[in-house]
């Protein structure tokens, strides 16, 4: 095998593939990346693949192929090397059990790994539809933050993805907060039956972030019983990169009933101002102790801490309607939700101090017609489609 490739294209491809390699591989070959040089109908190309039985990654880049072939080398080492190469074309060739990498005047030789032991990557399942890669990444990030990290509750470590016609719905919860986001997309078959799957949250967030290059993202989903080995797998393709991940075999709890349909008080707050105030007041809140919020007409006062420790207080303006309410939240949970919703103004909806509060982004300025009960329907039609539900902390007494 022998080929010449542009330095940046190679470095990007290797770095992306190596990123999802396991740090403690189940088998030594899984620490490798597979390099395959082919000369197909679309011209000569190099395909770089990685796999750990959960997540597979594959990216193709154009090269000048001299001879075709495949070789397996340590992914981490190759990533470190390609990242450090000088800006010159890179020549890669295999000589017996060694790979030579030449770039300008630097030359590396690496041992190869037994390519015949490398597992076959799963095929991409059937295409389900396409979605804007940037919107997809934003939607995933805004929901994945609420996913659980406790492996003893596996059903909460995933993001539930619901596909129904031209709507995608993402949902995740760790029992303390619930994030739900809707997004429109272009299904391959608009009349397909609705599908619900559970994707590992961390993998999904990584994938979504790394596939924003291509403008559009293609989702593929294995139909049950198609017999092609792609059941239980979801695939993502964008900008020449393909990745698959195994779906979680667990049932996401019914969550729609958690969303309150009515509330007794609502507040509109400036998000950056509120987040900054929360961060300041939270400085005196010990690990896991709450920030107390007193909402009343005209504003909200934040406080945290205790008399014998540190105490902090701050007031900010808020457009508040309803009876005064005192409630308390884990500041991290609150800051998470406000930050990911990516809006200048947020609306908070309350019923009682021990019931969940709803956070929604307001796309337009708070000075607008806030009396309208559906004011959170923003002008871009998307801002309304995010809901962050947060359980309060019960205060003593």
């Amino acid at each position, binding site marked *: 095998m022998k080929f010449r490739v542009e330095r940046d294209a190679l470095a990007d491809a290797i770095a992306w593939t190596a990123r999802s390699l396991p740090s403690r591989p189940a088998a030594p070959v899984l620490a490798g990346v597979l390099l395959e040089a082919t000369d197909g109908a679309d011209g000569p190309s190099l395909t770089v693949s990685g796999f750990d039985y959960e997540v597979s990654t594959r990216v193709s880049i154009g090269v000048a192929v001299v001879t075709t072939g495949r070789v397996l080398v340590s992914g981490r080492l190759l990533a470190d090397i390609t990242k450090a190469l000088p800006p010159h074309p890179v020549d890669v060739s295999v000589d017996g059990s060694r790979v030579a990498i030449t770039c300008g005047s630097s030359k590396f030789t690496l041992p190869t790994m037994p390519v015949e032991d490398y597992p076959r990557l799963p095929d991409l399942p059937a295409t389900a539809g396409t979605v804007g890669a940037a919107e997809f990444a934003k939607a995933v990030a805004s929901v994945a933050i609420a996913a659980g990290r406790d492996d*003893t*509750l596996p*059903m*909460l470590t995933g993001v539930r993805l619901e596909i129904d016609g031209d709507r995608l719905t993402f949902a995740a*919860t760790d*029992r*303390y907060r*619930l994030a739900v986001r809707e997004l429109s997309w272009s299904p391959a078959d608009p009349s397909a039956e609705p599908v619900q799957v559970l994707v590992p949250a961390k993998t999904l967030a990584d994938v979504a972030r790394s596939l924003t290059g291509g403008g559009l993202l293609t989702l593929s989903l294995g139909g049950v019983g198609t017999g092609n080995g792609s059941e239980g797998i979801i695939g993502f393709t964008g900008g020449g990169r393909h990745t698959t991940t195994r779906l979680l075999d667990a*049932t996401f*709890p*019914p*969550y729609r009933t*958690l969303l309150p349909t009515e509330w007794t008080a609502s507040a509109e707050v400036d998000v950056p101002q509120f987040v900054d105030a929360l961060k300041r007041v939270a400085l005196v809140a010990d*690990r*896991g*102790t*709450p920030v107390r919020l007193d909402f009343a007409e005209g504003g909200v006062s934040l406080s945290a801490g205790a008399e*014998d420790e540190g105490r902090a207080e701050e007031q900010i303006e808020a457009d508040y309607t309803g009876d005064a309410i005192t409630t*308390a939240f*884990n500041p991290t949970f609150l800051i998470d939700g406000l930050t990911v919703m990516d809006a200048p103004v947020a609306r908070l909806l309350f019923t009682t101090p*021990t019931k*969940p509060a709803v956070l929604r982004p307001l796309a337009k300025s708070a000075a607008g017609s806030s009396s309208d009960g559906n004011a959170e329907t923003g002008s871009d039609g998307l801002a309304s489609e995010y809901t962050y539900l947060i*359980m*309060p*902390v*019960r*205060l*003593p*007494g």
Partner: protein
Amino acid sequence: MGRSADLPRQHNSGEDAADDTDCPILHVDMDAFFASVEIRRDPSLAGRPVIVGGGTRGVVAAASYRAREFGVRSAMPMGQALRLCPQAVVIRPDHAAYSSVSREVFAIFADVTSQVEGISLDEAFLDVSGAIRRAGRPVEIARAIRARVEGELGLTCSVGIASTKFIAKLASARCKPNGLLVVPAAETQAFLRPLPVGALWGVGAQTAAVLAGLGLQTVGEIAGTPPDTLRRALGVAQGQHLLALARGIDPRQVTPGTGEKSISTERTFDRDLTDPALARLELLRLSDELGSRVRAKGLRGRTIAIKVRFGDFRTITRSRTLPEGIDDGAAIYRIARELFDALGLDQPRIRLLGVRADQLGEGAEAVEQLAFDLGAQVAPPQTPTGLGEVMDRARSRFGAQALRPGSLVPAPTSARRDQAVP
């Protein structure tokens, strides 16, 4: 407890009691509490040396005053205690019983003032400033408490009365057992000066050795030492802390309801454990017992910690803080086992295992992160079924062995042997 018991005893509960002006802090300490509860339960033990503790490699949890005459002290290894006092009656601790009596003791305190800071089951600080108008001078309040504890519960306690918590605690230790001692505010310095440095809060064997190196044997000598000398020898924080205490300065307030900072169970094994599966079984037993004790106080722990001591006495602890407090043995065990498994021990020799609950809060009173109700499958770490409470009730009626996790039920052969013993 052991150290202070070696100090000469003082007592001044008579009518000519010392001046208790500006001495609103009471330290009430039950006398040999666990042992006294056992003696009350079985009066034939009265006057005999009684040691509450377990196993040949366990430690003394409490010793009756008769046993202390032989030199037996709390926290002493059982082996040593039994060499000192071979005729002692050894009783396994029954924490449920001690908790229940403790609640009755604290109920008496609560009648006096709401300013009660529980330190442990058998010890509390009371700030009686607000009760003086209604219930009389601190000395009269202390006498009333002692009379009620003895009259209603058949137990004795000792009370130290002083202007600060630290002095009050020293005073109660000095008048034990069954005593009362006032350290008048004006005489605080005179009271402290002759005490050995070990009487100061925070001075253990190591610090005492450092102080001895400076030629400091008594509290009075510390009080007269230049601050810089102490800071250099002990570090800034501890140097200042000791100097303040030695001069009778203790700004700590009585903080009601603080209660115990942690509750722990631990067990030293007669022979080192080498099988991780057996170690997990012990963790289950300890977690189950810890859950009962945490529930008995109506508390929940937000931090769960394990302690592992190896055959070579190397000791490690690992802890995890949870978003919600837990009080259920199974939930505690889940955390304890994860912490234990994460140690990745290869062929360990385990001498001691312990499980501890920290950051305790009262179930209903404490700050509590609320969670969504997502159904039974998505409910851990706390089992919401009230199973723990049911187990507690069953155990209090039918005995501690009545209801246990299945894996802790002995194999059939030993079960038959249990039944054969009347």
